């Protein structure tokens, strides 16, 4: 009887393990490899934000922030549930940014969300990475920054940073480091079931963001003003917007707020898709172009793929199609979020690096070790495209996130009356 019970228990454990592996879509990493990656991340983050750790006042919020992101990274590697933990991090970041921004602008700053004309004309606007796509052409041809912020506020640096990020990570930025993408991702994650299923997406919608990109690049170049910011950017609803002092401004406010309600809130809620990122965002379109150059991509293993199509349903940015399964990789709009990993029952989808043959545990140097040898497993886990990609892009996201989250902790402490 005891033997029967033990067998049943073992059977349940094995079943759970298989389910876990199938649920993750990517293999969980061994504990030594996970700890190594997390320690490396924490060490790098400490070095990069170290000056904020010297006093208790800034050290506590920054320390907690770094530890939180370290915990997320640990879970990503330990559980293999890339999409789930990435989404937690991503959505938390988006909410934290809104809180931090509004606190600075409304509570401690000017007291309201609108950017006055005098501030615009005095180049006192905040820098935003989406400006990069509008600023690039005027910068190159006219030498002019079109965004109302002083050029010494790192405008040129932000543009350079966006270009480099695009070249290295492609559209991975959109799911791992974007300041605003977490908003529609958050609403897309809220419901368990899809309310409005999108079975077929017309190519117009699939590539509309490229049209928006072309339009605003031309508009910004011809008018030397940030066209997207003036007319379309929906995230002004949660940050700041131009003061409403004319009918034109009323129209513009109505437009961006409607876009926010529909593309950021309603449609993601109903369809579980990131519609703003997929249909509108010009920066996403730019990063889609750099996806062609980026060494990282998402590969579909033909040998394992049964063409069940679950990954197509799961993809939040419409970057999977039947042709993707035939081509063996996702479309150019792929944000490398890992949602398809979790959906694939065959474990056929993974991160890959162009032109680099990752042999993992079968590397000739490791063949002297037994298959389940700890050291061999450790090296195999580290020397994998997914590990390299997730570690580097999470480092980028973590750097962007840390300051924002630290500010949120400071806000909480301030509200609680705690003085450090």
């Amino acid at each position, binding site marked *: 009887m005891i033997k029967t019970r033990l067998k049943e228990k073992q059977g349940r454990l094995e079943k759970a393990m298989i389910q876990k592996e199938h649920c993750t879509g990517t293999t969980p990493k061994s504990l030594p490899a996970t700890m190594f990656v997390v320690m490396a991340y924490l060490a790098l983050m400490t070095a990069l934000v170290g000056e904020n750790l010297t006093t208790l006042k800034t050290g506590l919020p920054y320390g907690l922030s770094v530890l939180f992101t370290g915990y997320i990274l640990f879970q990503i590697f330990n559980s293999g549930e890339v999409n789930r933990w990435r989404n937690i991090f991503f959505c938390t970041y988006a909410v934290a940014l809104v809180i931090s921004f509004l606190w600075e602008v409304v509570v401690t700053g000017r007291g309201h969300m609108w950017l*006055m*004309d*005098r501030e*615009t*004309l*005095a*180049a006192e606007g905040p820098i935003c990475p989406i400006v990069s796509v509008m600023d690039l052409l005027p*910068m190159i041809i006219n*030498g*002019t*920054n*079109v*965004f*109302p*912020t*002083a*050029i*010494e506020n*790192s*405008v*040129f*640096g932000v543009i*350079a*940073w966006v*270009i*480099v990020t695009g*070249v*290295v990570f492609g559209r991975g930025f959109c799911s791992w480091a974007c300041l605003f993408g977490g908003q529609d991702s958050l609403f897309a994650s809220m419901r368990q079931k899809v309310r409005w299923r999108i079975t077929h997406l017309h190519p117009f919608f699939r590539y509309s963001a490229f049209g928006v990109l072309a339009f605003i690049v031309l*508009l910004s170049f*011809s*008018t*030397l*003003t940030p*066209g997207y910011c*003036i*007319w379309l950017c929906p995230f002004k609803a949660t940050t700041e917007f*131009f003061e409403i*002092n*004319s009918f*034109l*401004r009323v129209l*513009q406010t109505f437009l961006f707020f409607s876009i926010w309600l529909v593309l950021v809130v309603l449609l993601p809620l109903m369809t579980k898709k990131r519609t703003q990122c997929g249909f509108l965002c010009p920066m996403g379109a730019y990063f889609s172009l*750099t996806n*062609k*150059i*980026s*060494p990282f991509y998402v590969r579909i293993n033909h040998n394992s793929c049964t063409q069940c199509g679950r990954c197509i349903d799961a993809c939040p940015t419409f970057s999977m199609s039947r042709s993707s399964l035939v081509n063996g990789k996702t479309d150019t709009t792929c944000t490398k979020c890992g949602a398809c990993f979790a959906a694939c029952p065959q474990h056929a989808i993974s991160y890959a690096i*162009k*032109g680099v043959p990752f042999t993992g545990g079968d590397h000739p140097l490791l063949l002297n070790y037994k298959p389940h040898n700890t050291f061999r497993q450790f090296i195999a886990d580290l020397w994998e495209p997914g590990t390299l990609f997730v570690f580097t892009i999470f480092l980028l996201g973590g750097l962007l996130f840390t300051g924002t989250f630290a500010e949120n902790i400071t806000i909480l402490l301030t509200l609680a009356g705690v003085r450090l």
Partner: protein
Amino acid sequence: MKNNAIMLGVFLMALLSIPAVMMVTGQLTDDRLALIGLHTNPNYNGGIIIARFDDPAGDLIDPVPDAFKGYKNAFDIRSFTVARVVFSRLSGMGIAPRLNLVFEFDGRLPDPYDSSLQFSLPAIQVFINAPDRSFTSPLLPGIALTGKEWDFQVCIDGLHGQARIYDTRGTLIGEGLSIAIKHITADNSDEISKTHIPDKRQEDLITSTSLNVALPLDLIGDPLTGAWEYYVVIGMPDLNSPGGISSSVFDCFKCSQRETDNVIALQPLRSGLYRQFQGKMHVPDFFFAGPGEKIKERMK
């Protein structure tokens, strides 16, 4: 093809990493960026400067009354700048085109009358000559305009907290134009509060003060249409005079006092052709009047 794309990507990354590192280490200063021709759209930086005139210190043409002896700097203008702010109509920016008149003085401007703008002195008049318009005699006695005509008179009146525009018939065509004051400190810090009267410590920090008045181009026309001329006169407010400004003149650009009749003869400051200012301008911080103080236009 793939290898070429990767090589291109690596090359771009290497190329752009240099300015990125320079940015992070704070070496991308605006002077350096200006060397490679990078600048913010001038419309966000006070406007495209179409004219700038400097005036030497200590060239007062009339002695300052005893009551204001300690305020000599207040009547000694150091520079006058005209800048144009115009956004493309296609942009949807929603900010009306304007002409910024910027006046700079050494030190802090006095406020003996407790003005809402934190300066009561001086009162400034600018006579603007737009091409192809009419001429009449000047509004104030004792001032002769040598050269050509003038079409608009701008009265910058800190005492009354506003600027006004008159046409050649003395008709008020615009009032309630706000005057923005900006204090410049030696270290260019932002210690000086814009909304509170500076305390003594802050006063000592002020090296210069600039006043900015924004004139709607809809009222006066576009200065790029020809060679506009400006006559700048520095005087005093006068509660009893019709224009609110006394006829006393203490400083002006290119002016002299005629010995025969003691009339101040002004030479025009010509803006000439458009040119881009190559250098750093103190950014004027200016604003339109708040709610309830709309610009009134009474065009005949």
